[in-house]
């Protein structure tokens, strides 16, 4: 069965248009962030007293801020912060969620009870205020933000993984692996984990969007990434004071956050549809 590239695309596009759109946005944003040093026309922290709050022009495509810094350059470097926070925070939350979910689901009994009631308790805290409180005590550095977001967002993954593990551990192939002489660690990593990978991947993708939003909100409130290091959230914060005379300062970072979160959500949702055959098209 060989189809021409054109026919293949014609068959793929209508079904997976959203997947492609999401993946395109995510890939584009990642590329911009990666290539920021090459693409940025100015240094993101270079102050220029002769070009304060300038509207978008050829010299400054997205305008300048109250200190005369180039908004495009700051946005490009800000993308690095946002994506970096997203990936590290989600990496941490997925690691914790996987470990606890696998443990609870496979061991069952008291272990399961303790872990899952722990999850319930942590879910009782409104997580954003928890993060705010913790960051208010700690120094609001990039590392602390990533760790705190990661530590407060693993519960969903833990629940998901536990449920998958519960259903997988009673499957015959797990029993067959035990008959073949495999120990619990081998069964979990080789037989349970790969079969639970799809929903975890979906959840991680959606988690990146969530983490980016939290980081932007924190930075907007001044408790996130600290100036002069640029982040979409703190550019937005600086923009709100001059909204009437320099709206571009709020518009572009807002748009970037919207697009990126939308991209990850589209990617996550359509991955779920593609990977889970139970959901009809």
């Amino acid at each position, binding site marked *: 069965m060989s189809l021409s590239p054109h026919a293949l695309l014609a068959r793929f596009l209508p079904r997976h248009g959203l997947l492609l759109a999401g993946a395109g946005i995510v890939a584009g944003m990642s590329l911009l962030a990666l290539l920021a040093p090459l693409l940025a026309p100015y240094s993101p922290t270079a102050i220029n007293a002769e070009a304060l709050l300038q509207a978008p022009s050829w010299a400054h495509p997205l305008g300048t801020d109250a200190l005369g810094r180039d908004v495009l350059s700051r946005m490009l470097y800000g993308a690095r912060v946002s994506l970096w926070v997203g990936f590290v925070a989600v990496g941490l939350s997925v690691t914790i969620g996987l470990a606890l979910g696998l443990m609870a689901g496979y061991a*069952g*009994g008291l272990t399961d009870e303790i872990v899952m009631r722990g999850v319930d308790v942590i879910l009782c805290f409104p997580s954003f205020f928890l993060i705010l409180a913790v960051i208010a005590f700690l120094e609001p550095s990039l590392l602390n933000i990533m760790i705190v977001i990661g530590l407060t967002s693993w519960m969903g993954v833990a629940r998901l993984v536990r449920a998958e593990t519960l259903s997988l551990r*009673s*499957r*015959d*192939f797990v*029993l*067959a*692996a*035990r*008959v*073949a*002489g*495999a*120990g619990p660690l*081998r069964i979990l990593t*080789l*037989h349970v984990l*790969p*079969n639970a990978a799809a929903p975890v991947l979906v959840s991680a993708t959606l988690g990146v969007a969530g983490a980016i939003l939290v980081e932007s909100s924190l930075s907007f409130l001044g408790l996130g990434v600290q100036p002069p290091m640029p982040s979409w959230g703190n550019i937005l914060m600086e923009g709100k004071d001059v909204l009437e005379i320099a709206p571009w300062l709020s518009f572009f970072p807002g748009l970037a956050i919207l697009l990126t979160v939308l991209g990850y959500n589209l990617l996550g949702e359509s991955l779920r549809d593609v990977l889970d055959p139970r959901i009809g098209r």
Partner: protein
Amino acid sequence: MEASVLSLRGLTTVFDLPGGPATAVDGVDLDLQAGETVALVGESGSGKTMAALSCLGLTPPPGRVAGGSILFKGRELAGLAEEEYRRIRGRHLSMIFQEPMTALNPVFTVGEQIAEGLRLHLGLSPREAMERAAGLLAEVGIPNPARRAASYPHELSGGMRQRVIIAMALACGPDAVLADEPTTALDVTIQAEILDLLGRLQDERGMAVLLITHDLGVVAQSARRAAVMYAGRVVERGAVDDLFREPLHPYTRGLLTSLPRLDAPGARLTPIAGAVPDIAALPSGCHFHPRCPHAFARCRAEVPPAFGDARRGARCWLLAPGSAA
């Protein structure tokens, strides 16, 4: 008489349910000798699969082996530590599963799954194990084994998958295999092929097979001796020929008269009235008495002992010396 490879004495498996303990396997005695096939026959829920899992130390929680002895090649397995058990499982004592759809991991190739046991027990390198796996696939009659080893389970038919499962179970050359309904999920024609394959491999390797089945046709085709289980107990045992010709227990008789016969066309089938009891609420005395056409007072009150000897006998008060019936 030759020494048994696997010898069960009074094997009892209990499930600790919230409403109190439920006995799934109740004092099962069974002997399996090298090179022979013994059938363990019973309806769904009679405890035959649980008996097999108990032998492997794999009773699903809250079930546990509560009593009796599991003697495997002269070694007591009941109460063995998990690490010790892991060394025996797959290597010396193995199991073939019923469902070819679910007993294979969908994310690994069949070669990798056969290789798993070889690497765990024999310490083969991944490459050696894959070569051996391909050899095993050839042995279970899969054409083009080297290429098939790289296939995923969903790319194979049900019969092929069952062959893969057999190859997995036999990979390390076990002394005994517990085959749990190995043909139930297959078409009748494929069933015969799989049974032939199992018989051939057994002859070549001289291993013992405990064939767990509810299908008396499979019993007649493959086994010389059989034990009939009902509600956790072995109610009758004997050579398959004797069992079919002259069943001692009313339950065995019921099973046989509920089958169509070629030698008596037009004869009415007589199903056994009622259903298998729930193990959490078993009838008193002989568990079969509510469904038994011959039940009398003693059946309700007392558990019948095993009349006869280890080779031929039944648990039924009708066989008691001086019984009224």
